[in-house]
Structures are given as C-alpha cells and as structure tokens.
C-alpha cells in the first residue's frame, strides 16, 4: 500500500483536489481510500462515500487535531491494509498553521489557495515548508500576476517542493498530480517507528487541562507571556 498525507488550511480545496485526483487514479485501476481528520465538524466523508471511496472520519474534538492525527496514524494504516487499498490518502486541516503531520519517507502534500493572500506562505510553518508537493488552488479567480507572485513566495519558503496549480472545480491539473502519487514498488505496511518531519507545537498548560478561569493564579505549566515592549523589560 502507498500512503500520502495531505494537509492545508481549512477551505483551501483539499477535498475537491483529492476527489479529482482519485477520479484519475481510478482510470488506472488503483484502489484508493481516504481518512479525513478534522476538529469539530466535517461532512466531507459523505462526499467521498458518494464517489464510492472507502472513507473513515476522525474528529479530534477537544484535542489538537494534528496530535490526534499522529496518535492514530498507525491504526489508520492497518485499516487501509485490511481494506486492501493500493493507496491511502490522509487529509487533515492544519488549524494553527504551525503543525505538519508529515512523516519521513511518506509523500506529503500541502494545499493552499491563491485567495489567501501573498503573505500566507510566510505565515504557514512546517506544514508548507516541509511538504514534498505544494498544490495551489483557486488560480482561476485571481489574476495571472497574483498567481505568479504567490508562486514565487511559495518557492522562496520551500524551494525543493514540486509546485502545481490545480483547479478543484474542473480538475485541471489533478490528473498530473495523480501521476506523482502512486509508486508500484512502494509498499507500506506500518508506520510504527517512523518519524515526524518536524516536532509538533508544545502545549501543556492549565488551559489544555480544562481550566476556564482567567488570571495568573490559574496558569500553570507551559505558559508564555506576550511582549508588550514596556521600558522595564
């Protein structure tokens, strides 16, 4: 089985891109399944089901979605093997733009869109910088100049990545992406022992544990204070 991780900020078009890519993979008789990770809500699983794609949905609820991802990836890979998939795609929304659920040796895709503004590549951390393939969507609604500026910004934060424009509505570019995702020779039966490409953000303070009161008296653990630039600092 092959494994690909797809991530990207919410509503950039990850699901549309994956659906179009799977359409192209089906033409080559490649059997694909999807695991959708999200935080509070998603009905994307219905879209996958409609397209006859085996799917499971994982909602992290009160947990950090990417921590949830990494604690479940091994089980998810087992599920994929049981379903006899040729290719398993995981999809997750990087909610704080700092996380990256990328694993060493596993193809990783970051999906971002042209509408998010030219400073976005600077704001997204390892999720963009550590990706193997960067997919840029919504290129059909911004000007060619903005597409080029955006692309050059992406290139300067991740020069090694393959960058592609994909139209999630017409599917233009999706076939091309699909050719980069499946390698017959690759066979992944487990990810236990594999390593994340980048440590996830640390979070362990009283608020992670359910504290709701505000004030220094209630703050414990990993707490950091904003720098206000007062003279005595």
């Amino acid at each position, binding site marked *: 089985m092959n494994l690909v991780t797809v991530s990207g900020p919410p509503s950039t078009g990850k699901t549309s891109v994956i659906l179009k890519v799977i359409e192209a993979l089906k033409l080559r008789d490649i059997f694909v399944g999807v695991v959708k990770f999200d935080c509070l809500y998603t009905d994307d699983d219905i879209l996958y089901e409609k397209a006859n794609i085996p799917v499971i949905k994982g909602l992290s609820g009160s947990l950090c979605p990417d921590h949830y991802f990494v604690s479940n990836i091994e089980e998810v890979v087992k599920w994929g093997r049981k379903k006899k998939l040729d290719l398993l795609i995981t999809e997750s929304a990087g909610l704080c733009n700092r996380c990256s659920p990328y694993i060493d040796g596993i193809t990783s895709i970051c999906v971002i869109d042209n509408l998010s503004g030219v400073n976005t590549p600077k704001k997204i951390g*390892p999720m963009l910088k550590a990706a193997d393939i960067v997919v840029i969507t919504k290129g059909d609604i*911004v000007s*060619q100049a903005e597409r080029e500026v955006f692309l050059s910004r992406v290139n300067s934060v991740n020069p090694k990545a393959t960058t592609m424009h994909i139209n999630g509505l*017409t599917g*233009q*570019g999706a076939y*091309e992406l699909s*050719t980069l995702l499946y390698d017959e020779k690759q066979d992944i039966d487990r990810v236990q022992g594999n390593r994340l490409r980048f440590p996830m953000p640390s979070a362990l303070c009283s608020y992670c544990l359910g504290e709701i009161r505000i004030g220094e008296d209630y703050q414990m653990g990993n707490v950091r204070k904003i720098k206000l630039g007062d003279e005595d600092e």
Partner: protein
Amino acid sequence: MNNMLYNISIRELLQKYPFTLGYFEENRLDVKGFEGNTFIEYLNHFTQEEVEEWAIDREKIIKDLLEYIDKMMDFLGLEDNHNVESLTIIAGRDKDGNPEKFREININKSQIVSIVGPTGSGKSRLLADIEWAARRDTPTGRAILINGEIPDTKWRFSSNNKLVAQLSQNMNFVMDLTVEEFLKLHAQSRMVGNIDKVVQEIIKAGNNLAGEEFQLDTNITSLSGGQSRALMIADTAILSSSPIVLIDEIENAGIDRKKALELLISSDKIVLIATHDPILALMADKRIVIKNGGIDRVIETSEEEKKVLRELEKMDRIIQNMRNDLRNGLSIDNEKLTKQILVPGTNLLTY
C-alpha cells in the same frame, strides 16, 4: 557552493546573490546585525527555545537556501534559452478512444489559435495537456513538443518557469494595492532590473487597451471590469515569464480586444483563445474544433473569413463609438448611425 555558507559573510553573500534577501524576508530570518558573520554563524545564534518557538529547522534552511540560490541562478542566467519558438500538438484520442482526426498542429510564436466547441467538450483537457507538456501520458494520449522536441521536465515542476499563463473570464484582483504597488510587487517577484520603467510601460500598454484611463494610484480592486482585463493583459504580455498564454474569452465591454491580442503577440507569445465570439475566433490564424474530448477539425482561417472579419470589425467599431458617446454624456441619434452604416446617398449597408 556548500562551503559558501560557512566561509563568507552574509554581506558578501548578499553582494554576490542579491536575491537571497527575498529568501531571508520570506522565511523571517532577520539578519540585521549579523552582516559580518557567516550564515551558519547566524543560524547558530538562535537559542534552543527560539528554534522550537519559531519552528526553525536549521538543516532544512541551509538545504533550501542553497537550492533557492541554484534555482534563481538558473532562472536569471538561462532566461534567453527559454525561448519557445513553436508548440506542436500531436494527435491522441477522444473520449471513446477514437484517434483524433489530424496528425499534428504546429503553432509558432506570435500566432493566435482559437479553440471552439461546446462546454464540456474537452477544452480544459487540451489546455491541461499543454500546461503539463504531455508525453502521451495523459488520458488523451496527446504529446506536446516545444521547438519540435520533447520538452524538458522543468516545464512541469519548476516554479519559475511555468509554460502557460492563463487569463480566464472570472479572474479578479484580490490584493488591496494600488496599480503601482501591485505592478512593482509582480516585477520584484520576476527579478526585473529596471522596475520603474517596466511599470510605466505596462500602464501605458494597459491604458491603450482600456476604454477609460486609469492611474498609478488607482486601487486595483476599484478598477472597472474592462480596466482590470486591460491591466491583466498588459501585465501578462510584458511581465509574465510564460511563453504561452491561454485566454478564456475576453468580454466585449471596455477593452479593445484586437489591440489586446496584438499586444500579446507582439511580445512573442503564443496565444490560444477559447471563444465563441466571431471577431476573436476569426482573428486567429487557425481554429481548433473540439468534440467529445478530441480535436475534431483544424480550420485555417480562409480569405473569405478574413473578409467577414473586417466587416464584423466595422460593426464592432460602430458599437464601440456609441458606447463612448454614452460614456461622454452625448445623445444617440439616428442620423449619425445612418452615416456610419449606409453608403452615402443610398440605402445600402456599408457592410
């Protein structure tokens, strides 16, 4: 080159490769105060806490910087070698697997080809084949040649050298900038030497296409539809690195479409235009008819059609003039119209 980051100071690095400043900025590496140090020394000054805090991956930054310098040098040095003289489409098959009814289509630079066919007939697929420089490895089985040869894979993967620029009907400006700021931003990303001159050139060309003039300090989001289109076309013609331009209709309002196409081909672009507007379709040297996912026919624009085009252009001009009159607050009178469309002293139409 690897040693360079260990041996030479950041100041020297910036002198040698001025564009690395862009890399520092985009990656939020504030090198101020470290100009005299090497880049490695600079990276080593971060504390463990800062490394975690800002998600700094030293090894990756080093690898990426070297890759970036490599790519930029490639991009700056090879600009001239990227000349695309011709594009050739070699026949594949339609949706049902039937071979397409042509052998190959050859398009030279400064030529216009129109693409016609009903929605869903496979125009997007043809455009994608060209964009991807297909090698019989897409569902249509078509192959694309550049300058008569199988193109370098750099056209597929490089982010500085995309083969195709696109202008589609529903494109909008989304940045909140003035025309000048916007063009400068684009020029910077393209590493243009004389930015001010290029900006002036684009404004002039843009205004030459637009019905209404716009200024450097106009906000791009407040441009009219015609002005936006004019600015996009002028910018693509002059600043875009892509040798092939795909256009998805140019609507009739507020822009001189003939001049727009002339501007693009005068910049040595290959222009492909998907349109059902007779004026645009006939302006092309040939047109590709798409049916059921395949290219059904290739029609050379005949002398007869060129004649029809000239008549259509006359009609178009009459409507344009009327539009200008309306814009300038004049009233429309029948006499003026008659003067334009009837041969004097007769009731024969001039077209």
